[in-house]
């Protein structure tokens, strides 16, 4: 046993030494990659995309993954970008932050990608944000949290395409103003999604002259929220705003109607899916939410500036896959299209792509909204990119103004 120990130790030390060496070599090469890509002798543009194709975030990641693949095939069948084929390396982070970090390191250091897309979840995106900043690789996230791109000074290389919860709250408040409702009772999920929603609702309340008369919360798995709703009703609220993802809001809708409270219920973009209606059934009728336009592509009018982008993407997606692209598909689509826009305009190294995204994306029409990136705003959207939807006859319908 003792005889074996020494060779083993030696082997381990050699391995460690070699690993250290190769790491430093990699770093040098990575440093070169940015520059050499711009010299015009590239045979392909390499893009890395990390989306959560499996795990709890798979309903988000799958459409994003599909949309990215769809665009890669489309661009390459049309002869690439200015004659150079596009190569997208897709990686699945399995909805885990550790895996996302590993994949980000692999894509940047081994594959030497020009841009990093993803990931689907806020936690995973925040986990890889640091790597993108440190390695100076442009990154475009498909996750919701505002903190991914704020404060902008600490997010020089990071952009994102989905609307933030701030936009969703603004859109809800705009709707409330239109309806002449000024007193609301809020009931939020006690998780990160709900509390971040409440934070924004409180921050924006004065600006939109909204008074929050009752603030209630629940745990995601609670079986009954009647006590909280009775309290909101007793506080003379004119509407109930529920901020959470399934099943909470479905229970809230059901309890509200069972209690015989007929206040309007306004939800968040977290329930922009058919499952909410399946769960809440009749109680879902009349529930209003802010959402991206991909929830009902066929209801978007021809006058909408996004009409062409949305309908062509929707058609291409549904032709190829047997599922709906949903709003998440639109994030995946916009992410890759932004990069393609940069590459088409001659921004072909990491630094130039970042510069292009920050300075040249103005009134850029995507499927999620119309983007205006600047050095102060790396999300580039306004609340107008969201529309209001209402449940009517068991379906989400666009709410006309």
């Amino acid at each position, binding site marked *: 046993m003792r005889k074996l120990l020494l060779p083993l130790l030696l082997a381990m030390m050699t391995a460690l030494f070699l690993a250290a060496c190769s790491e430093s070599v990699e770093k040098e090469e990575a440093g070169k990659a940015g520059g050499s890509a711009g010299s015009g002798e590239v045979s392909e543009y390499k893009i890395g995309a990390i989306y959560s194709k499996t795990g709890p975030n798979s309903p988000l990641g799958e459409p994003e993954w599909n949309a990215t693949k769809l665009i890669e095939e489309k661009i390459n069948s049309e002869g690439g970008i200015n004659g150079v084929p596009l190569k997208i390396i897709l990686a699945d982070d399995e909805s885990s932050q550790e895996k996302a970090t590993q994949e980000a390191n692999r894509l940047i250091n081994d594959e030497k990608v020009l841009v990093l897309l993803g990931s689907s979840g806020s936690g995973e995106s925040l986990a890889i944000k640091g790597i993108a900043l440190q390695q100076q690789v442009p990154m475009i996230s498909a996750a919701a949290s505002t903190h991914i791109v704020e404060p902008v000074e600490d997010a020089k290389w990071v952009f994102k395409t989905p609307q933030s919860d701030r936009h969703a709250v603004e859109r809800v408040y705009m709707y409330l103003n239109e309806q002449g409702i000024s007193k609301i009772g809020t009931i939020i999920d006690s998780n990160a999604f709900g509390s971040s929603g409440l934070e924004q609702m409180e921050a924006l309340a004065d600006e939109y002259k909204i008074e929050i008369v009752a603030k209630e919360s629940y745990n995601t798995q609670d*079986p*009954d929220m009647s006590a909280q709703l009775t309290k909101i009703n007793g506080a003379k609220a004119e509407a109930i705003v529920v901020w959470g993802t399934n*099943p909470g809001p479905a229970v809230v809708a059901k309890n509200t109607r069972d209690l015989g409270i007929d206040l309007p219920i306004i939800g968040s973009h977290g329930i922009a899916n058919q499952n909410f209606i399946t769960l809440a059934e009749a109680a879902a009728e009349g529930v209003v939410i802010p959402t991206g336009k991909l929830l009902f592509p066929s209801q978007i009018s021809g006058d909408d500036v996004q009409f062409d982008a949305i309908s062509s993407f929707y058609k291409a997606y549904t032709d190829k896959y047997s599922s709906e692209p949903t709003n998440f598909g639109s994030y995946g689509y916009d992410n890759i299209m932004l990069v393609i826009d940069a590459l088409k305009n001659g921004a072909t190294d990491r630094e130039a792509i970042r510069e292009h995204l920050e300075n040249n994306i103005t009134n850029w029409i995507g499927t999620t909204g119309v983007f205006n990136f600047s050095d102060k705003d790396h999300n580039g959207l306004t609340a107008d990119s969201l529309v209001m939807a209402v449940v009517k006859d068991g379906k989400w319908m666009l709410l006309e103004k």
Partner: protein
Amino acid sequence: MGDLLQFTLTGVTIGSIYAIVALGFVTIYSVTKVINLAQGEFVMLGGLTMYSLTSAGVPYLLGFVITIIVVSILGWIMEYLLIRRAKGADPISLIILTIGTAIFIRGIASVVWGKDQLRVAPFTENTPVNIANATITPQAIWVVVIMLLVVFLLYILIDKTMVGKAFQASSVNPLAARLMGISPKRMSSLSFTLSAALGALAGLAIAPIMFPSYDMGTMLGIKGFSAAILGGLGSAPGAVIGGLLIGLLESLGAGYISSGMKDAITFSAILLILLIRPSGILGEKSVGKGGL
């Protein structure tokens, strides 16, 4: 006044859900001294099996019976494959085994039923009943009725039948029980099967209220376990009192103090009660003695 009544009714609804889960804990504990932390998973399996059966077009009543049978068999298998093999291990090891089982069942369920919440139709027409400006849904009344029925049947089974006597005997002194011709192994097997059946029944009753999903077992397990501890582990009426108390504390706490604080209020109260009565509200001081 109307508010107080509403908070109470809501508390009773929530409390009955916890109580019905707690009864499963009590059944196994009183025979084997094992706390089965996979009890919440039995409840989940009950709800989700019913979902599959009803969406496959099986009539409601038949689906009800099949669900209970299927989950009971799973409970029996769990005892046969795990608990029996590890016989002789101390209760702590067995409890850890049940945690492993819970994680395993949850994993399988997430593959079989997916991760979305599902909807199960209520037992009867679910138009809310109005009592002096407060409302309660018929399904909630069903939960209360089933819970009371289960307590009553458990009482009959344990205190009035031979099987019950054998249960108590195996719990008090397995060796002496064996000398009297009782097989503690069979009793352990029976208690797991019975509590799986109770879990399934709980799942069936709760499913229309709660939108079951693969991960509902964890929360129900914790709340049910707390109810069982509060009432005094091993006491069926205690489990009911414990469950109802937790439900009422949550509901009144959310109603009159703050919904964000409701769990803190509830668990502070539980701690306080356990400090005064360490063995639970109806728990017996002597640990050596079994009985429901």
